[in-house]
């Protein structure tokens, strides 16, 4: 793997170990591997690209402060996503009373990822709009599994729920997404 490429997922634990040893280069490689999915994840939580960018910075700072809590050779992504989610929740707690989550206007929809399972249902914009209308809990489990490839056990550990509950949420969200898309297609 060369230094200007995103590291593979299997390389992340070794990079984390090097980062824990204090190597700045390892942090930079980790950033290259983690920033894109974390940015997408935070966008899917906040529905706001600018807020997601702010939270991404905070997430990496928190990740740095909490780097000792990573235990090799565990997968790095669930650990990093869990920290990013906590940053989002803390931000929402402090800010949420005055800036409640509202359904975003169509033109505000950020580039939230579209699960492959829903890719053939309609155009990406329609799927994004339908995703935005899903309950947040279901949408989160759906995206974590179908976009970022987490197992339901990992999603459970990340969200603090049972793996079975995560699976049920994702399944229901996908079914709701398909129903919405079917309705949209029928109208068209």
């Amino acid at each position, binding site marked *: 793997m060369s230094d200007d490429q995103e590291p593979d997922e299997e390389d992340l634990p070794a990079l984390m170990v090097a980062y824990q040893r204090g190597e700045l280069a390892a942090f*930079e490689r980790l950033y290259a591997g983690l920033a894109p999915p974390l940015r997408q994840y935070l966008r899917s939580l906040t529905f706001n690209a600018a807020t997601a960018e702010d939270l991404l910075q905070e997430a990496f700072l*928190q990740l740095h402060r909490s780097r000792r809590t990573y235990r090799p050779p565990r997968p790095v992504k669930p650990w990093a996503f*869990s920290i990013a989610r*906590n940053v989002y929740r803390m931000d929402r707690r402090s800010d949420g009373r005055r800036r409640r989550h509202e359904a975003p206007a169509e033109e505000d929809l950020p580039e939230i990822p579209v699960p492959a399972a829903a890719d053939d249902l309609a155009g990406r914009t329609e799927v994004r709009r339908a995703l935005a209308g899903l309950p947040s809990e279901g949408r989160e489990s759906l995206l974590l599994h179908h976009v970022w490839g987490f197992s339901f056990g990992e999603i459970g550990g990340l969200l603090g*729920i049972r793996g079975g509950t995560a699976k049920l949420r994702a399944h229901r969200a996908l079914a709701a997404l398909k129903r919405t898309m079917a309705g949209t297609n029928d109208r068209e």
Partner: protein
Amino acid sequence: MTVNDPLLDKLRARITPDLRPVRPLRPAWLRALTLLPWSLLGLAVLTAMFSPRWGVSALTWVVSGVQIFVAYVLLWTALREAEPGGRPSGLALGLAAGAAFAVPLAVYLLILHAQPRPMPAAREWRVGLECLSVEIALGLPAAALGLWLAQRGLPLRRAAAGALVGLAAGVGAVGIWTLFCPFTSAFHVLTAHGGPLLLLGLAGLFLAVFVLFRRRL
């Protein structure tokens, strides 16, 4: 991508001065074992302060050990809550908190059934205060140790983690003191033994939420 990323530049500037090596935390089950030396130390101190009760029945030793084991499980659960990506489910947290009250209650009912010993009315308040103060004195260092261990991680549900640490200290203290207090009067058990358990749980919760686990983001 990484070369001209302004966010990476900012992060690099913030992180570089604090890039000292760190050792990964040990697994939660291993860190929770610190409860064992605390239990032995507590037992030794109490034995030195009060008369040794080596003549207590095997049942008392067993239920004391069971309660200390439950305290260990509670602390382990709290420390897992402080591990990002490995958090226990809400159900597991609820079951652990329920066990913190259910197990001492079951132990009390068992001892009441097997070895009932009513409290002499004249000594009720004095003994009650003694049990209360000893259990709190025994539990506070354990709670402090547990909160420190949890604080080294990243407790995400701060209230739950703090309450579980406090309850672990409380159940452990009740478990050790079971060897020294033979009385089974319901009022005494509920106030002098249940009281410290509840107080330590609440203390853990408030310390976690308002003092210790507040993190700058």
